[in-house]
């Protein structure tokens, strides 16, 4: 490629100018940026709400807000973080930007549908935000909208569930686009088993998005129908079954955990071989474990329902399946560690984030086994142990993988380098703050601290204080990271095409890439991680 003729997608002059050149663009990279800025804004709002909850919990009783406000805030925090940040996060941002590039394509299969997905995402998000400010008050059901309470509460449940329904459609369309892209647009010569592993994880994720999301869509419609027309799907007073809601909700929402974590695993699988300068260990095992997680992940939803009144036979069956899903996850962890073994390790910030991911994901995964086992789950059900486990998987997993991906691909996306010292500081602050925030919640959870409670016994206060301090450190780490990246995007040093000596296709392109990515059909290596 001749760099003197290179016009990056950021500088490209199309039919439209200014903001229209962005919000009407069907370029997958620009759409990725649209998602990223929207998600970053939602994330900051969600994080501030989380911090407010932490300040409320610093002492027993009322400190900075009323109980109903607290109920509203934890619901909003959940809806924003789950539906508007974590589920779309990695797929919509890095998937959109890098899937076509990594398989040697010029765009996704349906670029207009891709832009439409973003509009649906923004519309659904706007509705979710609006639901918080309506006269009836923000929904107070938690992000799970459990029936029968959600069928009777006077808060804005219908608007919030409609928002989740529309956000789900955005997710389905993105999944559909990615499946077709992987099947139809791979570069000549690129077979499934020499595709990089991030596209593999996106492919597995896309199937979950396509198949599981309609289930929650229908469930939420049933909930709306019950509220509006009094149809007795879930309310026992009307002849319904509240456990049916839980079944339907978790048939989607457990696979949704894998919508969040599978792309995260894909990002980590790209980062580790690059910073170890070593071929990834067990390529096929990692690729197939993504499909295995997607497949088995569909069958374990009942472990969220051990205390719901579900039959005993179903409980042990779901417990068995839950233990099985741990196997493909463990395969990935063992393969990452084996890839590092005897590698030429370069401790750059992206790699440090990846290491933090493995550590935090391991804690989240191992505590997941405690929750997968029926007897121990019943002991800690609906306690802060769940809050800690959940955040170790979702924030420690998906969140840290997102930060890792951001630091890994930032030079490619913006064509600029960030400051390593500030980046390292943010890794440490985030890691320390995160553990200080969530680990004490495991301990008081086992001791009986309930989740979603506004008030608590004084004996739990030591942990709540530590958690609040951790929350503040975490927030400082976030601010430093954002400052560092924003400063780099505006005035950072120019990044070379391949700053990390990576071997996959994106590093063969100039930074940032041109509007059509490849001027000529890319050369596809037999193994995408060939460092010899």
């Amino acid at each position, binding site marked *: 490629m001749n760099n003197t003729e290179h016009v990056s997608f950021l500088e490209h002059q199309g039919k439209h100018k200014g903001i229209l050149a962005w919000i009407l663009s069907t370029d997958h990279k620009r759409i990725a940026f649209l998602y990223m800025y929207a998600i970053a804004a939602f994330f900051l709002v969600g994080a501030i709400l989380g911090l407010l909850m932490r300040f409320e919990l610093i002492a027993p009783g009322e400190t900075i807000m009323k109980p109903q406000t607290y109920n509203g805030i934890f619901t909003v925090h959940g809806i924003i973080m789950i539906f508007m940040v974590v589920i779309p996060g990695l797929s919509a941002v890095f998937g959109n930007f890098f899937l076509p590039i990594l398989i040697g394509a010029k765009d996704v299969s349906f670029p207009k549908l891709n832009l439409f997905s973003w509009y649906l995402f923004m519309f659904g998000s706007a509705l979710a935000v609006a639901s918080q400010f309506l006269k009836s008050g923000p929904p107070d059901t938690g992000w799970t909208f459990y029936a029968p309470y959600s069928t009777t509460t006077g808060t804005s449940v219908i608007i919030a569930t409609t928002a989740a329904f529309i956000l789900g459609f955005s997710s389905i369309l993105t999944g559909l686009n990615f499946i077709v892209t992987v*099947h*139809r647009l*791979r570069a*000549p010569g690129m077979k499934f088993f020499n595709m990089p592993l991030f596209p593999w994880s996106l492919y597995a994720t896309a199937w979950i998005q396509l*198949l599981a999301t309609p289930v929650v869509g229908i469930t939420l419609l049933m909930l709306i129908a019950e509220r509006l027309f009094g149809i007795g799907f879930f309310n026992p007073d009307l002849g319904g079954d509240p*456990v049916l809601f839980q*079944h339907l909700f978790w*048939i989607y929402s457990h696979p949704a955990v894998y919508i969040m974590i599978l792309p995260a695993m894909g990002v980590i699988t790209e980062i580790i071989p690059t910073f170890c300068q070593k071929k990834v260990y067990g390529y096929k095992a990692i690729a197939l474990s993504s499909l295995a997680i997607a*497949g088995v992940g*569909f*069958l374990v939803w*009942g472990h969220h329902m051990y205390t719901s*009144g*579900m*039959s*005993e*036979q*179903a409980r042990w*069956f*779901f417990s068995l399946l839950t233990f099985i899903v741990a196997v493909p996850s463990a395969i990935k962890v063992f393969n990452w560690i084996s890839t590092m073994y005897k590698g030429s390790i370069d401790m750059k910030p992206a790699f440090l984030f990846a290491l933090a991911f493995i550590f935090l994901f391991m804690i989240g995964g191992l505590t997941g086994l405690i929750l997968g086992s029926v007897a121990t789950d019943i002991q800690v059900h609906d306690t802060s142990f769940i809050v800690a486990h959940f955040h170790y998987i979702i924030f420690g997993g998906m969140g840290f993988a997102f930060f890792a991906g951001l630091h890994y691909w930032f030079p490619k996306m913006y064509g600029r380098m960030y400051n390593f010292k500030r980046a390292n500081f943010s890794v440490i602050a985030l890691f320390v703050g995160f553990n200080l925030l969530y680990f004490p919640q495991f301990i008081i959870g086992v001791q009986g601290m309930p989740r979603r409670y506004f008030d608590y016994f004084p004996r739990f206060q030591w942990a709540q204080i530590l958690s609040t301090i951790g929350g503040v450190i975490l927030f400082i780490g976030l601010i430093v990271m954002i400052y560092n990246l924003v400063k780099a995007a505006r005035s950072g040093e120019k990044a070379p095409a391949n700053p990390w000596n990576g071997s996959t296709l994106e590093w063969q392109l100039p930074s940032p890439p041109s509007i059509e990515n490849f001027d000529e059909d890319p050369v596809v290596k037999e193994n995408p991680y060939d460092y010899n």
Partner: protein
Amino acid sequence: MSNNSPHITDYKVLAKVLLVLMFLTFVTIEITSIDLAAFTVTIALLVAGIKSFLVLSYFMHLKYENLLLKILVTMVFVLFIIIVLITFIDYSFR
């Protein structure tokens, strides 16, 4: 890469499939008037499954696609059946 070659289905074939679909819709309606207890839903689902198969095969052209896509779509139905069966482990023993 998948095979993108075009294919044209004869209108006569499509018309025959449409007639079969209409007949099966009639069966779905009529089955509700016969008392088959729990099997009513089973038969209705079976008929719906056959109709889906015909629509996917002829109207959505899956019949002409490569083996990989056929396997993937079959897996979706297998997954759906497994999910329904697992749900009934709860309902059957509660």
